[in-house]
């Protein structure tokens, strides 16, 4: 399998002395749907900035599909599409013109550029907004326009920096469906997001970055298997004044009709229902207290924070 992205010992120190990246190593395979997660200020946007050449690296090597950033930046850029976190359109240009102009920067002839602009605006539900200046579009529309713009030159690797930030759930799901379809067509995708549910649903592999280094790099399945304890919230029919005693299941009362229960994967969940049933407590519904990936993410970042503090 070809490597879509290879990063070796990447460092970045800004002019004010802040070291954003401290020898980052990362590989993403061709065809992957990859999540790059990390808390704010961890180095995600700096990494993406270096890939898109908007940030100058201090040292290290970066290549995209074998095109080295130092030796062949133009070759690298042709393989890469970037959807940045912040809107960076010309506010006065129309949506259609933004796409055709961007295609022109990649050397795509006008006729083909117009065909592609129509294709992507239609796919992303923006065709009826083609003559609208970008400043008049809603936040969700702007996000979709940025995706269309990043795809106009048909990149082999698409990097999305929080593409669904501020987007309503319905639109977010339609964007997920669009991105999944794109990945199935062979486009490698790297996604950064603060919606960990999004990463869990879409991505096959994941890296967690914190304080400028990768603290975890594995498949989503393997990572989720590391989660030994899950916390569930149970809504119960009866009104409770104290938490019931449940052997092997730490439990807390969350109001009169809800219990928060920790379930160890080695113990399983069946015993919980047996004990509740024996005490005459009827469960109406249950849900994860937090997204599974979120629990792991928080635990990994906290561990790393403790390590850095030492």
């Amino acid at each position: 399998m070809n490597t879509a992205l290879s990063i070796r010992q990447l460092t970045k120190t800004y002019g004010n002395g802040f070291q954003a990246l401290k020898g980052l190593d990362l590989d993403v395979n061709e065809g992957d749907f990859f999540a790059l997660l990390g808390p704010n200020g961890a180095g995600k946007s700096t990494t993406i900035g270096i890939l898109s050449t908007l940030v100058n690296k201090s040292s290290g090597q970066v290549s995209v599909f074998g095109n080295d950033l130092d030796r062949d930046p133009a070759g690298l850029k042709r393989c890469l599409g970037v959807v940045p976190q912040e809107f960076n359109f010309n506010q006065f240009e129309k949506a259609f013109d933004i796409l055709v102009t961007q295609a022109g920067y990649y050397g795509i002839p006008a006729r083909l550029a117009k065909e592609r602009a129509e294709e992507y605006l239609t796919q992303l539900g923006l065709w009826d907004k083609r003559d609208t200046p970008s400043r008049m579009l809603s936040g969700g529309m702007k996000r979709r326009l940025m995706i269309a713009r990043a795809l106009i030159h048909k990149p082999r690797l698409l990097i999305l920096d929080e593409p669904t930030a501020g987007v309503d759930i319905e639109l977010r799901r339609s964007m997920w469906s669009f991105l999944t379809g794109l990945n199935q067509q062979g486009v490698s995708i790297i996604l950064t997001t603060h919606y960990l549910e999004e990463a869990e649903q879409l991505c096959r592999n994941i890296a967690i970055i914190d304080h400028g280094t990768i603290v975890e790099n594995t498949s989503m399945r393997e990572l989720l298997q590391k989660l030994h304890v899950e916390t569930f919230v149970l809504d119960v029919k009866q009104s409770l004044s104290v938490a019931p005693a449940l052997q092997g299941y730490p439990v807390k009362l969350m109001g009169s009709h809800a219990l928060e229960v920790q379930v160890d994967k080695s113990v399983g969940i069946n015993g919980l229902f047996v004990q509740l049933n024996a005490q005459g407590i009827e469960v109406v519904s249950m849900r994860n207290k937090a997204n599974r990936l979120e629990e792991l993410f928080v635990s990994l970042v906290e561990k790393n924070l403790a390590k850095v503090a030492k």
Partner: protein
Amino acid sequence: MKTEVKANLIALQTIVYREVRRFTRIWPQTLLPPAITMALYFVIFGNLIGSRIGGMGGFSYMEYIVPGLIMMSVITNSYSNVVSSFFSSKFQRSVEELLVSPVSPHVILIGYACGGILRGLAVAAIVTVLSLFFTHVQVHHLGITLLVIILTAAIFSLGGFINAVYARNFDDISIVPTFILTPLTYLGGVFYSIDLLPPFWQGMSMANPILHMVNAFRYGILGVSDIRIGVAISLMLIAAVVLYTCCIRLLTTGRGMRH
């Protein structure tokens, strides 16, 4: 290699088309004001005051100031086109669209400079047509006229680019036009021959690059000049090459654009 050249040519065409579309879309801000200002100059300086001044350099005062006023418009408009367009791109961050694409820095620079040159030439054409309502315009040497006007527009477009790169806010893009270009233009022989000045000020005026541009252009139109044409054109060529090199360096290092 051939594909890369073709891609860069399409990119260049795209940038130039976008720049032209920009200044023609906002024509009340870009093309109309110089037309009104220059019409006022023709009426006040040329007709009303000029008729009392008499001749200058063997021509009527109106004929004498026409080349200078055309150059004044070219200088101001070429500069302000690039400085405002590129700074706006930086301000709105849409310059990132260009920086993430494989466009060569030379193509980016030439594209912006062509935008500035074309606006300068468009305004020059408007001012020339306006001048025909007030006086007869002859062209003494078409080649020199075109070379000088294009070189001047290129030099000020490149200057505007450097200003835009260093500018951090909108005030920064008006400092140079207001405090440097305008005084140098007024003192650059637009309205008078330096023969009228005392020898000391004649010498001082020679250090003003705009004097050389205005006089070289006046030579192209009228065939008269206060300075040697060869020297003026050589200085302009050197200035263009130096500015181009500086601009390319700024683009390559990403000054003010990359972190």
